[in-house]
């Protein structure tokens, strides 16, 4: 059987049906709303890449499976066993035969960029991707977004995320339009999302995030993933999950590596009045007055945050003069992100203002290049030294090693697992 209908009874591992389908099956088992659909397994992709054509009979099987969904428009998405964000295609609102879309997604496994991505991340080239086909749900008739069970920036236990009203999910991911916080959702939907994330957390025993769409007031979940937290958030979530009894203290300590501690020690912005959010592209915190052109960044007295839609070589001198950089477009791998890192300057990319607040040139702001947040004024700094969660986690590590002597944090963590190499 090469085409498998999504349902709570599917019992195939992620390497057969891909990570996305595996997560959707998990959501269905938890009784959560997932648009009806089916998955074409990774073995079919491997056969396609080997033979250069779909296996005999697959097109008929696909036609029958689409017909079983009601014959209306569908979404066709890639779903490899290992996440490769942005590397493969997604086709929305496909009507009629889907074989062409399936071929396109299978082929996108071997674009040169995807091959390079796998080389960089040590992912085997022969895995192939699954393809998930689902009845199309229309965010245009409601909205779509991403929701986290805990704030991925600091780990606080609160429903967190972004929603685009009246738009499809791909617009959220592309960052083409400005998003709203989840408080923009009506309370009933928000409660439903919070409940779904609580159930997912109990299952994965970890913080989770979901992609969602609501259509005519009805919530649908399109993807679930555990993790996805910044290092300080990962520390806090490990400690909180142990306190909540979802994992043991030993598991909490095992989840945190010296790398988390080092990354969590990078200074972070202390909350404040958040006026824009994007993605942290170059870590660190910077405070300064907004300059909207590179020339102003050079000529304005005092520290400056250069804010641009995108950057060109004509912004390089402004970036060099600025203490921090914000762009409203582009991603973590954009020219602006690469240049900001090369200059060692904090940067936020893909930033959109919160509640459409406009920040004129000269406004004092603070940016956090880890969380991607932009706050009004001079927001203070926090460091790991003041972080109670790190202290508690290390206390638990000492309890495990039996050594309570004063020594560096990484040694205390390592002593709890003496037989492991540095993880």
């Amino acid at each position, binding site marked *: 059987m090469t085409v498998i209908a999504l349902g709570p009874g599917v019992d195939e591992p992620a390497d057969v049906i891909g990570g996305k389908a595996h997560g959707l099956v998990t959501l269905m088992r938890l009784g959560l709303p997932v648009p009806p659909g089916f998955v074409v397994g990774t073995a079919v992709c491997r056969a396609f890449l080997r033979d250069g054509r779909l296996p005999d009979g697959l097109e008929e099987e696909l036609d029958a499976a689409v017909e079983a969904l009601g014959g209306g428009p569908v979404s066709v998405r890639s779903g490899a066993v290992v996440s490769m964000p942005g590397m493969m295609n997604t086709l929305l609102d496909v009507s009629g035969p889907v074989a062409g879309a399936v071929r396109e997604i299978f082929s996108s496994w071997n674009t*040169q*960029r995807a091959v*390079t*991505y796998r*080389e*960089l*991340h040590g992912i085997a080239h022969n895995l192939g991707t699954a393809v998930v086909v689902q009845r199309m749900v229309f965010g245009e008739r409601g909205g779509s977004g991403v929701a986290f069970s805990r704030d991925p920036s600091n780990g606080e236990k609160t429903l967190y995320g972004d929603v685009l009203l009246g738009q499809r999910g791909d617009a959220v991911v592309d960052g083409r339009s400005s998003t709203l916080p989840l408080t923009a959702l009506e309370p009933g939907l928000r409660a439903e999302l919070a409940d779904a994330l609580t159930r997912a957390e109990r299952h994965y025993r970890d913080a989770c995030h979901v992609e969602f769409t609501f259509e005519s007031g009805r919530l649908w979940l399109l993807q679930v993933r555990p*993790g996805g*937290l910044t*290092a300080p958030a*990962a520390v806090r979530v490990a400690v909180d999950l142990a306190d909540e009894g979802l994992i043991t203290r030993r598991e909490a300590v095992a989840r945190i*590596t010296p*790398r*988390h501690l*080092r*990354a969590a020690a990078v200074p972070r912005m202390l909350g404040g009045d958040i006026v824009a959010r994007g993605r942290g592209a170059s*870590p660190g915190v910077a405070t300064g007055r907004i300059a909207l052109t*590179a020339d102003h960044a*050079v000529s304005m007295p005092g520290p400056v945050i250069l804010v641009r839609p*995108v950057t*060109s*070589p*004509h*912004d*390089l*001198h402004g970036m060099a003069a600025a203490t921090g950089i914000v762009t409203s*477009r582009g991603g*973590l*791998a*954009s*020219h602006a*992100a*690469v*240049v900001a*890192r*090369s200059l060692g300057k904090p940067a936020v990319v893909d930033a959109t203002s919160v509640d459409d607040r406009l920040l004129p040139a000269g406004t004092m702001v603070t940016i956090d290049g880890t969380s991607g947040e932009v706050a009004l004024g001079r927001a203070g700094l926090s460091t790991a030294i003041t972080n109670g969660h790190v202290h508690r986690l290390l206390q638990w590590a000492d309890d495990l090693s039996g050594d309570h002597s004063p020594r560096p944090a990484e040694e205390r963590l390592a002593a709890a697992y003496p037989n492991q190499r540095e*993880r």
Partner: protein
Amino acid sequence: MNVVLHALRCIGFADLSRVADAAGVSGARAESELIDLAVDGLVTREMGAWGLTEAGRAEDARQTAAELDSADGRAAVGSAYERFMVLNPELLDLCSAWQLRTIDGVTAANDHRDPTYDRKVLDLFGELDRRAQPVCAELAGTLPRFGRYRERLGAALGRARAGALEELADSMTSYHVVWFQLHEDLLVTLGRPRT
């Protein structure tokens, strides 16, 4: 077509040596050219670096469009640009991988203490460069000034291979910065906005 004016259009505010290197002319010739351009109000010099004026930008746009038309190169440059834009996200992925590493879900600066990883990224840069060469050659076949990018990209890669780690993504003469300028040049030449 004034190559010094156009170099400044593609690299932004820069000191004399960078202008000369980008234009592929001697420092003396670049300086003499820049002084003439300044007299005409097309460039300015501030704090030791040269920059374009609005008039200079307009004049370069005019010259670039005239050059493209006289070479009848719009289709060829357009097609090379499409190929460049397939390579561009991959190059940016590689620069990011050179600067940052994600291990155990934690993203941190690449401390360059893992020679195996660095070698892998450097090799992938070389592999991408090999695929970028025909695009540059196609451009240079239409507009010879594009040949300078081939030389500068190759030189940056050579310096990185010789151990100058900052020459891939982290200096003003890095492979990434030259690539960024080539990207700008393509947009300027085709008269397209950056998106």
